[in-house]
């Protein structure tokens, strides 16, 4: 009696196991197929959408949204059967701790995230990438700090020249511009920088040898804590020391306004003292709105990217779409990041984040695709995830609009340098 019963039970158990196995295999196959050809692929922008840097986060979102719409309207990711790209936005808030919390939330809530971009401020990016690296999410960033790609991480890709590279490139670039325009090489350098990571990353190598290497004497070297309440003591020292040119390494529009207005008040503005800023905020539309554009005339700034020659159509579409006066650094780089993620997915033929990261590592594109959004027109990352051939762009305020004056390949105007 027991044997048939056992046999029957065994048969039932076997049938059940077989059924469950088939169902699991079916589900697994469907999941594999879904991963192979998903209906949509998720990418993220994690940037400050609230707090003092909200404006920069919003500009990043605008750039990324435009890229995603462009990708989807041109057929999505073809290698994934035309899968649409879906952008998810996370707010990095106002300090690195909040940025890290946002990254943890993002990783938990978006298990199918393929890649992302952010988080604007270097200190935020350092915190965020601690989380994204563990989750093996390919992460693209415009942040400058060298330390972002000095930690041996494999999933972080820095799309700007690092701070130390900027320090090395800025002086020869500025000196060459001055020599081309005046036939004379400046000798006396003034520097005013705030005490945040990016400007200090630039002034430190200049102090420690770059200035001397280029035959420059540093006659003003001041550091301030942002935000400034008044720029009188800083500009008074510039007036007393009379440098041949001045590096203004601030990080926020309110400080930029105070500094340029004080320069003008002391008779050093509007190009009378050649002044070079650094960073996207020097070309932000709001700078022309909070101060008189006339006093910005002739002001130069260096940064990692700016839409010059060849990107006029992109700029026009961005302006028409967003109502912003122009496409700047903070929107262009997130736009480029989305295009890089698309290119990587096309090459990987997969939405698997590890394969996408591997595809980004093996990119080596010149003069086409996402490479067109970089001043060198070359897209390749080195072992550490740093952009190879990362070229600095120099812009100059001309007629109330920033114009690219260097490198010549993308320049839209000739640099003006006072002859006195």
């Amino acid at each position, binding site marked *: 009696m027991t044997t048939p019963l056992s046999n029957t039970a065994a048969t039932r158990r076997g049938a059940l196991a077989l059924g469950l196995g088939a169902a699991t295999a079916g589900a697994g196959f469907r999941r594999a197929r879904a991963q192979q050809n998903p209906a949509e692929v998720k990418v993220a922008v994690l940037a400050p959408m*609230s*707090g*003092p840097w*909200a*404006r920069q*986060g*919003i500009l990043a979102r605008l750039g990324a949204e435009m890229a995603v719409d462009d990708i989807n309207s041109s057929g999505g990711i073809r290698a994934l059967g035309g899968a649409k790209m879906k952008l998810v936005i996370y707010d990095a808030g*106002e300090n690195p701790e909040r940025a890290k919390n946002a990254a943890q939330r993002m990783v938990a809530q978006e298990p199918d995230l393929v890649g992302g971009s952010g988080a604007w401020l270097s200190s935020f990016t350092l915190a965020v990438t601690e989380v994204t690296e563990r989750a093996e999410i390919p992460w693209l960033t415009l942040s400058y700090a060298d330390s972002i790609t000095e930690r041996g991480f494999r999933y972080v890709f820095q799309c700007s020249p690092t701070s130390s590279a900027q320090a090395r490139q800025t002086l020869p670039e500025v000196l060459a511009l001055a020599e081309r325009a005046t036939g004379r090489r400046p000798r006396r350098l003034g520097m005013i920088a705030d*005490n945040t990571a990016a400007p200090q990353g630039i002034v430190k190598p200049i102090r420690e040898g770059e200035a001397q290497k280029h035959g420059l004497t540093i006659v003003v070297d*001041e*550091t*301030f*804590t942002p*935000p400034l*309440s*008044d720029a*009188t*003591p*800083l500009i*008074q*020292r510039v007036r*007393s020391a009379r440098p041949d040119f001045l590096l203004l390494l601030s990080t926020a*529009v*309110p400080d930029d*306004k*105070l500094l*340029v*207005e*004080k320069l*003008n*008040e*002391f008779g050093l*503005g509007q190009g009378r003292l050649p002044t070079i800023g650094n960073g996207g905020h020097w070309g932000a539309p*709001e700078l022309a*709105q*909070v*101060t*008189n554009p006339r*006093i910005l005339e002739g002001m130069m700034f260096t940064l990692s990217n700016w839409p010059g020659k060849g990107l006029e159509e992109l700029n026009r579409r961005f302006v028409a779409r967003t109502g912003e006066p122009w496409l700047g650094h903070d929107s262009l780089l997130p736009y480029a990041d989305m295009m890089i993620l698309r290119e990587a997915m096309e090459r990987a033929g997969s939405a698997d984040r590890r394969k996408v990261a591997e595809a980004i590592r093996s990119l080596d594109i010149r003069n086409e695709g996402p490479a067109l959004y970089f001043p060198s027109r070359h897209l390749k990352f080195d072992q550490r995830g740093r952009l190879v051939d990362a070229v600095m762009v120099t812009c100059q305020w001309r007629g109330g609009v920033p114009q690219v004056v260097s490198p010549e390949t993308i320049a839209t105007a000739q640099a003006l340098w006072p002859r006195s």
Partner: protein
Amino acid sequence: MEWEILLENVLNALAAGITIGCIYGLMCVGLSLIFGIMRVVNFAQGDLLMLGAYAAFYLVAAWGVLAFLGPEFGPFVGAVLAGPIVFASGWVLHRWIVSRVSGLRTAASLDEGHYGQLIVTLGIALILQNGGLILFGSMPRAVRTPLSSSAWMVETGIGDATIFLNKARVISGLVAILAVAALYWLLERTRLGKALRAAADNPTAATYMGIDVDRAHRVAFALGSGITAVAGGLVATYLSFTPFMGLDFVVIMYAGVVLGGMGSLLGAFWGGLTIGFVQQISALFLPPQLQNAAIFVVFLLIVTLRPQGLFGRSAERA
């Protein structure tokens, strides 16, 4: 030559310190009024300053209501008009929120309502900051005037040493002094002022004398808000701002009020002036990044040597 440069540096630091100090003084007076009369520690004071800056911005630039006054006068008239607008906001805030945790209602409680006040004013600050972000956006704003980037140049007669008097700040400083003088007159010479002082000195006795203490507190809160808003409007003529600007000023305000003597109106003004002065003069011999550290060194010195503040005893209570 070195002597001329030093002289010019000192004179320009003095000029900047006094003009900025007057504006700091005005914002400190607003806070002191609220604390002196109501004994409410208002953490939202910086955000009322922000409302003042935005009120001036909308009057002058965005809506252009005062555009007919031109970019030289319009911004300063806008700053003054920001006062009544934020006065009304302060009135509403007190009527519906702050009065629940202050005044006679909490006089008998063990903590005199201070815990509630801290939480409520901190909550108001957060709502104003993030509400401001939704309403006004994240783009930095400024009330643009050509005066903020130009100066009256005064030759000293000693070599090339020149004093640069920033036009926007000089006018702002004068407006601040006039506003404090008007407030002082209101408190000292009018019936309303007497009622406010009586409500500050002894709310219970004031009630017996027929003074509506709750109303007096409402007027004080609204006045303190309005005065700080005028300072916000003046700051907006030379600084750009976002909804989070209050955070940068609230510490200065509290330092100024404590420095001058808690509850002393004129003391608060002198406290603010001292902060502006120390901030600028310290930059002559210290690295500029230690400007704010210098303020707190002076602050600690005064609090240690004279705990009642500079004018804690000598000046009359608000």
